[in-house]
C-alpha cells in the first residue's frame, strides 16, 4: 500500500522530479537516472537487511563547506569520501519534550564516491552521523 501510494504520488516523468537532483547531471548520468525513478526512498527509511540499503548511526568526521553551506567530504571507515553534490536536504525535529526520544537533525543526502549517503548533523549530540547508505 505504502509503496504504491508513493509511486502514484509522483509521476515518473522528469517534470515530477526535484530540481536540485539534476544539478550534477552532467557528471553523474547513472545516478541521475537512478534518482529519477520514483521508488527510490531514503535509506534511513528502509529496514536493514533488505538488500537495498541499510540503517546506520555511525559517527563520522565531516568537512564543512561554509561557502556553499553543505558537507564537502566525510571520513568513513578510514576512507575519505568527497561529496560530489548534495542531492537533497531535510530537517527532523521531533519528540523534544521526551529527552530520550528527542531527535533534532539536519540531514543531507549526498552523492559521493561509492554511492548515495545520508549524513546528519545531530544537534542534541552536536555530532555528525552517517544515518543511511544506498549502495
Amino acid at each position, binding site marked *: 500500500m505504502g509503496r504504491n501510494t508513493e509511486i502514484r504520488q509522483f509521476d515518473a516523468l522528469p517534470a515530477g522530479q526535484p*530540481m536540485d537532483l539534476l544539478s550534477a547531471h552532467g557528471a553523474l548520468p547513472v545516478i541521475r537516472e537512478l534518482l529519477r525513478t520514483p521508488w527510490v526512498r531514503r535509506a534511513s527509511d528502509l529496514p536493514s537487511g533488505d538488500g537495498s540499503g541499510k540503517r546506520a548511526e555511525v559517527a563520522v568526521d565531516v568537512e564543512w563547506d561554509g561557502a556553499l553551506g553543505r558537507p564537502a567530504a566525510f571520513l568513513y571507515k578510514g576512507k575519505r569520501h568527497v561529496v560530489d553534490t548534495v542531492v537533497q536536504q*531535510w530537517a527532523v525535529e521531533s519528540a523534544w519534550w521526551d529527552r530520550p526520544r528527542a531527535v533534532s537533525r539536519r540531514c543531507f543526502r549526498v552523492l559521493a564516491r561509492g554511492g548515495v549517503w545520508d549524513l546528519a548533523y545531530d544537534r542534541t549530540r552536536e555530532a555528525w552521523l552517517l544515518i543511511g547508505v544506498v549502495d
Partner: protein
Amino acid sequence: MSGPFVHLHVHSDFSFMDGAVRLDGLVEHVHRLGMPAIALTDHQGLYGAVRFYRASAAAPVRGIVGAEVVVEACGVEGSECDQPPGRRLQVPAPTGLGRAAAPGFHLTLLARDITGYRNLCRMLSRAHLRDADGGTGPARSVIPLSDLSRMSEGLIALSGCERGEVGASLLAGLPWRAKKAAERLCRCFARGDFYIELTHTMTPGSPRYVAALTDLADALGLPVVATNDVHYLRREDARLHDVLSSVGARQPLPSPLGRPNAELYLKSASEMRRLFAGVPRACDATIEIAERCDLDLGLGTFHFPTVEVPRGETPYSVLSKLAWRGIEERYRPVTPESVRRVQHELAVIEDLGFAEYFLVVRDVVDFARSKGIRFSGRGSAGDSIVTYALGITDADPVEHDLLFERFLNPARRQMPDIDVDFDSARRDEVIDYIYRRFGSDHVAMVATVCTMTAKSAVRTAAKALGHAPDRVNSLSRDLPWVSARHIREVLATYPECRNHPLKSPEYGLLLDITEQLDHCAMHLGTHLGGFIITREPIDTWTPLQWAAKGVVVSQYDKDDVEALGLVKMDILGLRMHSAISEAVSLARERVGEAAVPEPFLLPHDDKAVYSAIAAADTVGMFQLESSGQRNLATRLREDTFSDIIAAISLFRPGPLEADMIVPFIRRRHGLEPVVVPHPGMGPILRDTYGVVIYQEQVLQIAKAVAGFTLAEADSFRRAMTKDRSRAEMESLHGEFVRRACALGSERAAAEEVFRQLEGFAAYGFNKAHAACFAVVSYASAWLKVHYPAEFAAAILNNEPMGFYSPRLVLDDVRHHGIRILPPHVNASDAGCSVEEEGRAVRVGLKGLHRMTERLLCAMETELAVRPFDDLADFLRRTRAEAPAAESLIRVGACDGLGVTDAGRPPTRDELLALLPELKAVLAREGPAGERALVIAPSRARPAQDLSHVSGWSPVRRLGAELELLGLAVTCHPLEFAAVDLKRRGVTWARDLPRLEDRTRVRVAGVRERAQTPPTRSGKRTCFLTLEDPTGLLDVVVFSDALERSGETIVKHRCYIVDGVLQNNAERGLAIVAEDIAPYTVRSEHGEAVRLRRGVGAAPLGPLRGGAGHTDEEEWSAVEATSAQ
C-alpha cells in the same frame, strides 16, 4: 544566492494556537534581517492587523496586511463525497482555535490597497457571520468562490501552503485536480494577481513538491512566489508553536498538524534564496508583490457615524444650540465663567471637527433619559462644560475647577472618549436603541484579546505535555494572577505556593514553556460594553464574527478601533445605578412620590451624609465602602463634597504609590504646615493642602508658574507621565525652568516646582472622573442614611456588586437597627423587600439554592390569589419541584404552615418527612382533588428547640441559611461563640476605637475580603477584612506575618488574630497582625457552625460573595475583585 526577500506568509499568535510570532518583536526582527517589508497573514482574520500596521508604519519596514483564508473546494465539480474514491481529497482539518479555525483549503490573500482591505474585511465578515446551516451552502467560516470572485479587487492571492487545494492535490497524487483548482482560483482574480505559492519546508518531499508546483505554474502561465509559511520567529520557538498547536487541537504533543521539523521560522533572505536556488524568480516575486502592496489605512483621520441635522443646519450649529440651552438649564443664573467656557469649548470642538461625536453620545443618553434609564458620564469627559450642558455628565466643571484641555487637547488631535455608565438592569434597552438608531450594519461590539497569565500558561503547557485533567487542575491551583514570566519567582516567594507541586524538579520543562507563553494571545473575547458605530457599513472597516455570547463582534480591540479613527462608545452597565433606582422606587412606594427627590440632583450639603461617611459607616456606598476607603474616612473625616472627590482620588494605585495620603491628612489636621514652593501654586493647591493630587492641578501649575497654555500644559503632563529617556526629561526640565524664570520666578523655586510635578504627575488622578463618581457616591450615601432598609434591599437585589458579600450587607443593615425577617412563602418576594414602615427587610427567595424561575412566578401568581395554608396547599398550587421545596423547608420559608395532630405547626423535620409523601400523592391525583390533603406525618426527628416554630436549634437554622442562601438571617455566626471568645480575651470591633494606639489586642472574625495590592516597597502585604457581630475589622498582615499565616488565611474562614492596634489620626484604625490562628465556631453545646456556603449559588441568586464562592480556597477567589 544573494538578493532581497520578503516573507509574504506569516502567522502570529493572532492565528490563535497556530502561530508563535509575537507582533511586538516581528517588525524589529525583520528590520534587523534587512528585509524591506513583511506580511501578516493570520488564519481567517485580521486580528493583529492594525497593531502590526502601526508597528510597521513606525519602522522602515512596509507592513502588508493579509490573511490566510479557508475557501471551498474548487478542483472538482460538486461535493467531495460525490467523487469516486480515487479522486477524493481529504479536506484539511481546522488549524487554530475558535473562529480562526475552519475545515477547508487554505488560500493566502494580501491587501494591495484600501479597496483590497475593505474587500478582505467584507469577505471574512460574510464567511464568519454566515449561519452554520449545514445545508447545501458552504460551511461556516468558509469563503465560497462566488464571494472570492466578487470581492477580489485590490487583493493579491497566493495559492496557499500544503493545505491549499493546489498543494494538497499534488501531494495526494492528483495533479489534474491541482491544475483545475489553480485555474478556477486564478479566474477569481485579475490577471497577474494570482500566484502559485512555493513552500519548501525542508522535508524529504519538499523538492518534489516545489518542482511539481513550478511545472504546474509554467503550464498555466502563472507566476510563482516563494514563502516559508512562517509560524515562529526563530527556530527555537518551534517548541512553543508545537505546544500551542497541540492544545489548539485539544491533543497532547505531538501536534496533530504533523509538522516534522522546526523549519517554519522567519528565515533570512539568503536562507530563502538558497532554498529556492532553482527558482530565483519565486524569490524575486516577493519583492515585486511587496512593492505592489501599498495599503494606506488613513490612520489619524476620524470617521463619525451619520448624524441627522435639520435642513440648513450643521452638526456644529445643532450642538451649539443644544449646549447653550443646556447652560441655561444648568446655571441659574448663567455665570460669565460658564459662558466663557462654553464659547471656548465649542470653538475647539468645531476646530477639531468633533461636533458629530458629541451629538451621537447625546442622542444615546437622551434616549436613556426619555425612558427613565439611570446613567452617568464619567472619565475625563467630566472636564467639559459642553458634556455637562448636554446632560451627559453631572459634575459642574466650573464649581470643581475641571479643565477642558485634560479632556480635549487642541494640540493633540485625538478621538474624544466619553464613557457613560447605564443602569445594568436596563442596559440592553440602550443597546437595542443603538442598533435601531444607527442600523445593525453599522454597529458591532469591540473585541478584547485574551492573553495568557501564569495560570492559563501552566494549564496550556500541562495539557500539551499530556498531563491528566486532575493533574492540570492541581498544577494551576493556588497560582495568583501574575504574568507567566514571573512563575518561578512566584513559586519561590509566595507563601501560598510553599508546597506547590510545580516546585518539583520534574516540572522544569513545563515551567520553561510557561515562561515562554507569557502574554501569548489565546482567543478573542468581547468587550464589556464597547460598541463601534460607523457611517459606512461596518464590515468595510473591520472583519466581524459571532462572539460566544451571541453578539456580532469586531476582530479589533479598542486600541485598534481608536487607531482606525472609528467612533467607540462604552455602554457600560453599573449595578449601583440599578440599586439606586430600585431604592428610590421602594422608598417612593412607602412614603410617596414627592417625598423622595432625585438623588443625583440633590444639593451636596446634608450633614448626616457626611457624618456617616466620616464614621466609616459606608457599606454599600459607591466607591466609599472598601476597607481602604473606610480607613481613609476615619482619618479624613469628610465634610464637603470636595472631600468625597479627594477621598475617591486618594485611594487609587497612583496616589497610594506616591504616598500622597499621609501629607494630605497631616496638613488637613494641622500636624504639619502647608508649604508651596511658588506663590502661584497657593490658590491651585488650597483645597488639597499643597499636595498635587489631581491631573488638572498639574495643568494649572504649569500655566501659573511657567506660563504654559492649558493645551501645552496637558502635553507637558502627558510627556511627564510616559516612560521618558533622561534626555527627554532634561529637555522638559529645561523648558519648564526657562519659561518659569522668564515669568519672574526664582530659579530655585522653579526647580522645586518641577521636582514636585515630576514626582506627582505620573500619579495624579483625573479630578473629573472622581467628581463624576462622587455624584453617584453622594446619592448612594444619602439613600443609605435616609432609607437604610430600602437601600440595603436594593443592594441585595442587585448582587453581585460592590466590595462585600450579601451576608455582610445584611449584617450591616442589622447593625443599623433594621430587623431581618426570614424568607417565607407567604411573605417573601423574589427579591428582598421592605416591611414594617422601613424598619425591617424581608429576605427574598431568588438567591435560594435550587430555586427556579418557574416556581418563583408560580408563587407570585398564587400568592396574589390567597396565602398558602399548608405544605400540601403550597405544593398543589405551585407544583414546586421537590429540590426547591426541600430548600424552602430547610431555610424556614414554610415555618408555621399548617397544623399537626399535636395542635401546633409541623417542625421542619416533620415537613421534610412529609414532602416525599405529598409529592407522591400529588403525582397520583394531579392538581384536582381535595383542597386539603390530610396525611399522617411520617416519623421525624424530635424537635431540638421547642421554643421555635421550626423545632431546629439556632445553630442548625443558621447553618441552613448560610448553606442555602449565603446569608446569616438568624444572627451573626460568632454570637454563638461569644462566651468562648470572651474567655479567650477577644475584643469586639465596636470596642477598638476606645483603645489606645499600640495596644496589644486579640480579635476574632469571619473573613470577608483579603487583598494583596501592589505596595511601594514591593513586599507583599495582605489587607484582611474580618467581620465580628459588632462590625468590621481591618487587619494588615505584613510580609513576615503573611509568610507564617498565608496558608491559614487561604484555607480557613474564621480566625483569631493577635496583633497590635493602630489607632491614630494619621494612620487610622487597623490591627497589625502578628499571629493568625484558625478558629472553629461552636455553640455552647458544642455544635459546629459551618461557615461556607455548602452549595453553589442558585441560578437566580448571587454568583459571588464570601459565603457563596465555590472555589473559595484559592487566592484568586479570596481576592475576587470587586465589581466596581
